[in-house]
């Protein structure tokens, strides 16, 4: 040991009272921040770049035996309709089936794009959860999906009579979304 074991006063760490509350205050800030992020439903509605754009040119072969395939030409004229991006392997797609059936029953024409699907699985899916679709196109490489700015399944687009995308709904359609979609379809028809 060396000679003078005297320790300078200032080296000791002093914590003031308010500093003890600082972590709690910071944490409260974190909670507030996260609450804002969590409870703002609007933040998940990614404003689609494709709303207001016309549908791109495409033509898909039939994905199911009892429904014709889908091309851009099929979606022009008449009333506004829904374009539903789905797949038999997608769980939320099964969850939205009753809502699609409800929309179909309300007289809405629904065209489907099946993403990377196989015929037997798709047939089983439609047999199990119902088939609200007028036409179903098979999009084996997600080409149409990409071209209309959809990055997942399910997604549902409102297409007006001129073939212009009017609305993009991301995620499954829940019961509370049905009136909203009907209202938007009506608006697209004006």
């Amino acid at each position, binding site marked *: 040991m060396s000679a003078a074991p005297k320790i300078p006063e200032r*080296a000791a760490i002093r914590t003031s009272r308010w500093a003890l509350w600082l972590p709690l205050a910071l944490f409260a800030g974190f*909670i507030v*921040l996260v609450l804002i992020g969590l409870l703002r439903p609007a933040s998940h509605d990614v404003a689609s770049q494709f709303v207001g754009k016309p549908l791109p040119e495409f033509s898909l072969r039939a994905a199911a035996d009892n429904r014709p395939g889908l091309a851009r030409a099929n979606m022009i004229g008449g009333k506004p309709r829904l374009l539903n991006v789905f797949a038999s392997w997608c769980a939320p797609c099964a969850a939205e089936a009753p809502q699609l059936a409800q929309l179909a029953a309300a007289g809405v024409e629904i065209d489907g794009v099946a993403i990377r699907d*196989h015929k037997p699985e798709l047939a089983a899916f439609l047999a199990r959860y119902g088939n609200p679709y007028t036409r179903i196109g098979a999009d084996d490489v997600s080409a149409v999906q990409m071209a209309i700015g959809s990055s997942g399944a399910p997604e549902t687009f409102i297409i007006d009579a001129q073939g212009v995308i009017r609305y993009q709904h991301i995620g499954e359609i829940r019961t509370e979304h049905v009136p909203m979609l009907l209202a938007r379809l009506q608006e697209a028809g004006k």
Partner: protein
Amino acid sequence: MQDCGSGQVIAEFGLAALWLAAALAVLQLIAGGVALSRRGDALGAVVRPVAIVQGVLALAAFAALVAVFISTDLSVKLVAANSHSAKPLLYKIAGAWGNHEGSMLLWVTIMGLAGGFVAAVERRLPERTMMATLAGQAFVSIGFYVFLLFASNPFTRLAEPAAEGQGLNPLLQDPGLAFHPPTLYVGYVGLSIAFSFAIGALITREVSPAFARAMRPWVLGAWIFLTLGITAGSYWAYYELGWGGWWFWDPVENASLMPWLAATALLHSCGVLAARNALRAWTLMLGVVAFSMSMIGTFLVRSGILTSVHAFAVDPRRGTFILVLLAIYIGGALMLFALRAGSISEGERFAVTSRESGLVFNNVMLSGTLGIVLIGTLYPLLAEAMGMKVSVGPPYFNPFTALFVVPMLLVLMVGPLLRWRLDNFGRVRSGLIIPALILVLSIGIAIVMAPGKMLSIIGLALAPALAFASLLPLRGRRLSRVKLPLWGMVLAHFGVAVSLFGMACDSAFTVEKLVAVRPGEAVRVGPWQVTMKSITPIAGPNWTALEGDLQASYNGTAPSLLRPQSRSFWTPPQQTNESALLTRWNGQLYTVLGDEAADGRWQLRLWWKPFVTMIWLGGVLIALGGLLAMLGHVASDVRRVIARSKIAFRRERQGR
């Protein structure tokens, strides 16, 4: 229930075990709380057994979940949504925790087992502190049990069994990843022990070197698993994602890094508390923060609040539920800290030039790094609250973390050489001449070899000097007499240098080539000559793939074969690129097969990454150092306990 076969009872058994475990956690909390009062001693006797049985029941519930996944019981919703009968057995088992509900069950299982383990073996602390600790552990567990049972029940049954399962994310079908989450979870949840210890000490106001010695092995244990988990996760992302990067600063990675930073700070401050009875309140604070970071990280990942691209990936109810739990536990613990820490004295003092000061500096810098990572991770959320959409990436994280890490590493060369309490810098100066020379020399070399890359130069310069300096604490000692914890420290610090060297080399010297080649064509990348021989289709259990046969020769030596694949899974349908790696002592050749171009050529991505493997080798060394330190501490504690009981036994025999 007409066809309730023997197999399907397992799910119900698991659910029952889960409920019982939750009930026992409530009992553990009440009994532990009552035992703290003066008249409650009688109830105290049940706390330890209850904690053990609670852990065993949670384990039984988890085993039941694994069992329903192995038998692909499609009447269980979770199995139907995440498994498939055609999946290999390993991934059926891994599927049990490769999803939200299963991973939360794994969380409470580890938490229950850790609590039970502490209850069974920890006898060093005053019984009052132990009661408060176990009550605290139960209190935290209860929240997660409630969350599991009411908001994410893994055993939910379908009214009608599904026809077939929907499969596991193909990216997760990889042997490395099958065991990566459990490793990380042991680390995350192991920190709950430190959290409960801190709560216990705050309640009873008993903070002492003995407390730190009792807490240290638990912190070290959790920290070892975290280190290994992060290292393994980084290597998985490196070879499985096919981007050639090893760290992406993505929220999921940050969620694992933040508890690690806090735990690293904690185990160093624990050392100060154990040896010198200083930094008392600060150590408790870190004990609370480390596990809080685990919970916050898990929340950020599980709620999908940061990574959400799709509304359906986010379940706001679940997110809100976990957030409430966080508010109760972290908020409560920080409140307790604010109320109590003022009455816990700071402890012993020390001089500026002392081992303690070095460790305080280490703690401040680690906390600073933690703050940088936390702010960067939350920034997108903050920006969104103000109406902007931003993403924060390496241009922010790399320089700002370096701002804290570089000074820390410089001090790391000196700190371990200093004596406790008061030292004289002149005493250690002579030992530092060589590291200083190495530092200056390697700065020169690095500037020449990697001109203009600031961070790489710093890393390349620091690593060799740090590697040498990390061995200095062994100087002048007889190696056969050096205690295990010192070996552990030296090894871990050396590992930091090794890892840093790998990172710096990777960012300074990596050569990348993106080419389109016909079979038979050759490409040069760094010292390698890579020839594409052929493309052949092959099939696996639940995928088909195109496989490229590549011949790679290093500076004209005999060629080796690499087989990168482009795989297509069909349940669920997804494309993955299986990279193929060739490892030499001085680096790795990394190859990825891309798509076919129109004219019969194939896209090929090639990297030559000198010394990249050092990154993970360093990680393993760090963990190994932790293991040595833990073994050393546990062994000396056991020796102390045995000595004490021998003395007690002799006294008894002598009738004293």
